[in-house]
């Protein structure tokens, strides 16, 4: 193993620059992964544990015990001083600085212990209560559905509309093609961020404000997608299209039986990009959607902010659930995503 690592740069031993490189990368792993890991770990902590300061790395759950005569499970403490020192006892209730305890083997005799003389008995465990609460108390499934609907439908429309345009721009010679290409480049210069007001007004005129379609439609045709697909379609030989024409295929049939399947790699890249854009989209939905029931996950997450006390327990769980699909997609399609993003120069 050591031999394997030290093979670097084809020399026998590691140069100091190699050590420095690995140190840098190690620090990078910590800085990039650490916060996300911390978030995930935190989301599995009980609310009490989240209040704990200083925070502990792993999620702990206090042990409980169910005793006859008590309806709810009781918290278990370890007594450090006094007559019961060294014993684990269950707390019935706490009054000020004193807690009333019972021994598990004698649940009827109440013993009073100062709270300074006891410490909770805990073990490492993942608490799923935050997640359960998310489904019980919040309209989480609604937000999830909104996000999913927008992502899927918008991606489908983007793929269809952009691939049709790319087909026309790559495989036909017609008057005005140069103008259209210039238009596509023009739209590249008009990101949504600089036309928010008119975009809002136009979308409103179509009656789409506060609907999911109002989020989907305005960004459905992307210049990036047209460029990406056109570039790929240019590599498909024209003779194949001619062969299909000789084979009695209509132009539309050529589009969906020949061009679409042959552009599959580029379409996959655009699909991934579009899914990412839509799932993570924030500013436009923030403007277009104002009713909570239409909120996407991103908006819902954001809406927790600004209240006086942040409900971190639910927020953490929801954040984790929002990033799970992204990480899952990334894990499976890393190569596609990386090359796709690099080749379009956009995200």
């Amino acid at each position: 193993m050591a031999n394997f690592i030290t093979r670097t740069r084809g020399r026998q031993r590691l140069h100091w620059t190699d050590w420095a490189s690995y140190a840098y990368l190690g620090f990078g792993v910590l800085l990039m992964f650490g916060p996300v890991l911390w978030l995930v770990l935190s989301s599995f902590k009980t609310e009490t544990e989240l209040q704990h300061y200083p925070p502990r790395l792993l999620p702990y759950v206090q042990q409980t015990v169910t005793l006859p005569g008590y309806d709810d499970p009781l918290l278990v403490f370890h007594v450090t001083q006094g007559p019961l020192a060294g014993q684990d006892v269950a707390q019935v209730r706490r009054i000020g600085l004193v807690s009333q305890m019972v021994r598990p083997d004698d649940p009827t005799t109440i013993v009073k212990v100062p709270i300074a003389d006891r410490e909770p008995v805990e073990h490492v465990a993942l608490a799923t209560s935050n997640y359960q609460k998310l489904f019980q108390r919040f309209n989480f499934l609604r937000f999830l559905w909104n996000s999913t609907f927008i992502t899927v439908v918008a991606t489908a429309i983007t793929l269809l509309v952009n691939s049709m345009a790319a087909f026309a721009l790559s495989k036909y010679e017609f008057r005005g093609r140069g103008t259209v290409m210039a238009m596509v480049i023009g739209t590249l210069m008009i990101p949504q961020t600089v036309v928010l007001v008119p975009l809002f007004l136009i979308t409103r005129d179509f009656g789409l404000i506060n609907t999911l379609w109002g989020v989907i439609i305005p960004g459905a045709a992307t210049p990036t997608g047209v460029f990406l697909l056109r570039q790929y379609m240019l590599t498909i030989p024209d003779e194949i299209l001619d062969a299909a024409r000789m084979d009695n295929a209509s132009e539309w049939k050529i589009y969906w039986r020949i061009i679409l399947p042959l552009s599959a790699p580029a379409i996959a890249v655009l699909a991934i990009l579009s899914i990412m854009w839509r799932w993570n989209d924030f500013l436009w939905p923030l403007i277009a959607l104002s009713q909570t029931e239409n909120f996407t996950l991103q908006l819902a997450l954001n809406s927790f902010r600004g209240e006086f006390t942040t409900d971190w327990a639910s927020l953490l769980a929801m954040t984790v659930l929002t990033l799970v699909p992204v990480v899952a997609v990334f894990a499976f399609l890393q190569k596609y995503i990386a090359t796709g993003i690099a080749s379009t120069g956009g995200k």
Partner: protein
Amino acid sequence: MADLELRGVTKAYGAAEVIKGVDLQVAEGEFCVFVGPSGCGKSTLLRMISGLEPITGGEVRIGGEVVNRRGPAERGLAMVFQSYALYPHMTVRQNLSFGLENLRATKADIETRVTEAAQMLQIDKLLDRRPKDLSGGQRQRVAIGRAVVREPRIFLFDEPLSNLDAELRVEMRGEISRLHRRIGNTMIYVTHDQVEAMTMADKIAVLRDGRLEQFGRPLDLYNAPANAFVAGFIGSPRMNFFTGRIAGGAVRLTTGETVALPGDTFDMAEGAEVTLGIRPNGLHPVDSGSGLSVTVTGVERLGGESYIYGSTQDGTAVTVHSPGQTAIEPGGAVTLAIDPAEAHLFSAKTSKSLRKGAAS
């Protein structure tokens, strides 16, 4: 099956005229080859026949009907492309049936036709493969098969063999000829290779720069080329050309030699500038006597035959074909006798043949 007729067909891309008026008649069942140097417009002409390229002027008639305004699918033709243009995402079977599906043939009909064509072309074992898993020759067969299943009125081929290696090319050449004999359809075949044209064609159309230079049977083109271009293009190695003028009923070459030609074969106006053409096998090295004196620059000995390369005093390159083996060495001089029966005479000005009764 159908015949094909072109009447004054022209094609222009904007201001650039690419096909400059072609008249041609291909009879039903004929194998017609369009041949000419690269860029002369062969593919364009073929694509105009196919319907893939709009026609600027003139008429294309198939089976007597004008088809100018019809789309490629409605002309009942099939085409084999230079790059084969197989659908890469479909299996061989799907490649063959795609066109039939588009014509709404029944499943059973498609099945029988595909099987039949696959057997004929010996690709029946490859039906479930994709094009990328085929060799060049197999792809070629599939491309032909895709045309065959359609049972077209006319087959169109655009340089179908140019992507194959030499050996395979000869083999496929024979195969396409056999296919033609077997199914007997009209076929139009484009190539820049005159050997292909000579070996396969019933009729050859020689094109240059968007014009039809000559149209006729291969040996007619060889024996009586209509002009210096056809003479030089058809036949391998190339015909030798010498410049001269008519003097006293004979040709006086610029290098000084005089070549007597039978006066009843050629129009020999006194003083006219002419080009004398003689194929490599019309020249014979002689030990003595009059003839063309040539400096030998190279000799190729192939055993059964030899080629002697040389140049005349004014630097004109000369190729001589000599049956058997020769003792001539590079660097020496040799005298070449000219066989008058093998001579061709062209006007230097128009480059048209001066043969009496030659079609211009």
